[in-house]
């Protein structure tokens, strides 16, 4: 039974490695549409790239350069819209005020990260501090957490990914993860690595949790769309767009589109939580 169950997992995994498209069909030859530049967070980039494929009122030039760069570009007037997976920092607000730019914040989606373990693992709840200690290499045995006497195998993501970024910020307080941690390059491969190893722990976007792994409660809160949206689940964040006050109608229309039914469907399709 065990041997055969691995095959579908590995299959989905290999398929998942193929580039995922947005399913948007090419739009004819739009004449005289404005071009809007959208810069910033690599986490938000896939959403906006898919929006760009279906949005017809303007041509979007989307580039994922990181949240910080997007906000800086907005302040410097180098971009029409900034994508950010964090709120603007005080320093950035001061910089903007100094340049006479008043950024307007729009939350377009929420992003929750579930901590997952092997389904056979009796541990069903951890504190944020415990998760951090596991990934710092301070806790190395499940026994210390009320589980069996088994080595903990932390599974992490490649350090440039958006998921890693949230985890590093919200769980690790940016402290470095133990270097020997198993590293995978997608949510799907993290899930399959955890599903294959009884002692493993990993983290994946909420949309990737299925019955091959078990999502544990963090500080007593089980991750779900409701707890993320309600703000009780801790490992979650808002994904934002920023535009300067007094932006053109084209920018406002685009924001409206993202917040609308079609935009929010893209949000869900990309594995994030719609508003």
């Amino acid at each position, binding site marked *: 039974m*065990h*041997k055969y169950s*691995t*095959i579908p997992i*590995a299959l989905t*995994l*290999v398929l998942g490695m193929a580039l995922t498209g947005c399913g948007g069909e090419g739009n004819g030859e739009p004449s005289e549409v404005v071009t809007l530049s959208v810069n910033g967070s*690599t986490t938000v980039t896939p959403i906006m790239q898919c929006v760009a494929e279906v949005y017809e009122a303007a041509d979007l030039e989307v580039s994922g*350069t*990181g949240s910080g*760069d997007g906000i800086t570009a907005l302040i410097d007037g180098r971009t029409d819209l900034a994508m950010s997976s964090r709120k603007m920092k005080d*320093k950035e607000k001061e910089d903007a005020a100094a340049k006479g730019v008043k950024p307007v914040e729009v939350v377009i989606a929420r992003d929750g990260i579930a901590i997952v373990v092997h389904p056979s693992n009796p541990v069903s709840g951890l504190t944020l501090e415990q998760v951090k200690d596991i990934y710092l290499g301070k806790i190395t045995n499940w026994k210390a957490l009320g589980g069996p006497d*088994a*080595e*903990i*195998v932390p599974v992490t993501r*490649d*350090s*440039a*990914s*958006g998921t*890693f*970024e949230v985890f*590093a910020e919200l769980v690790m307080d*940016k402290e*470095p993860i*133990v*270097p*020997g*941690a*198993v*590293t*995978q*390059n997608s949510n799907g491969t993290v899930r*399959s*690595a955890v599903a*294959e*190893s*009884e*002692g*493993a722990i990993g983290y994946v976007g909420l949309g990737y949790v299925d019955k091959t792994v078990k999502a544990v409660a963090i500080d007593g809160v089980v991750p779900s769309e409701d707890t993320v949206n309600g703000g009780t689940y801790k490992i979650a964040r808002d994904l934002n767009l920023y535009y300067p006050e007094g932006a053109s109608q084209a920018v406002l229309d685009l924001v409206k589109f993202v917040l609308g039914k079609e935009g929010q469907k893209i949000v869900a399709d990309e594995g994030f939580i719609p508003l």
Partner: protein
Amino acid sequence: MARFTSETIVKPLLGFFALLSLVFLAGILVTLLTESGPFFGEYNPLEFFTGTQWYPTLETQNADGEWVSDPQFGLLPLLGASLQVTILALIIALPLSLGAAVFLAEIAPPVLREIIKPLIELLAGIPSVVFGFIGMVLVAPFIKDLFDIPIGLNGLSASIVLAFMAFPTITSLAEDAISAVPRDLKEASLAMGANRWETVSRVLVPSARSGIFSAVILGFGRVIGETMTVLMVAGGGAALTFDPLSPLRPMTATIALEMGEAVQGGPHYHALFALALMLLAITLGFNLLAERIRKRDF
């Protein structure tokens, strides 16, 4: 007319195609050098070559309490992983390949040889993602149970899969080397009363040693550049360790893991090109070495 065409068009065209490969090689070199060049200005090369930590996106707090980018680009854990996985793969592959080569060259009846040799060469044509897949689904769980370790995605699992990938290269070249040993040597050995095993182990294999050695080195080049398999099977741990039962992250896997999301033109991006440059230097060096050994016949 036909002659005119072949002389004036086809010949230069063929020459142009041959030249293209040189152009590509030069293009790759130039790209690697220009893209990795800035890295050695942005990051202390000494720390790159002696560093033991690979944290490409680390941030630390400065005296003012602000978070500033403080990446660590230490080559050693990645280079160590590449070398461990490769050498272990060759250790596994060598006896198998040598045995197969001796069998094909000396023992197998011609009919069997005609069947087996193409089959071994067919093995070389299997895409590496298929090997990686087999490694994940069959080898990793097997190794996990065999050694009773918590995770099967590790250096040893990757080495076993890589050994099968190097097997056809080494077998084929070693077989050529053994077949090329002059008949006189073999016949002289048999005439002196040596049996078949003594002839193989004391005359044929030693005489073919330079060819066998260059086969192993070409196998090395094949294995150290392999990406998909190690990405899928080796586990990806970036700690500096000499335990093949722990997750390892060879240089190729690091590039494949991180290139997609590294900010273009940033230090991380340049660091990955520097890794690629190291890989190219290593494989190029070993290929030249193999070439020299084969020609010198030591």
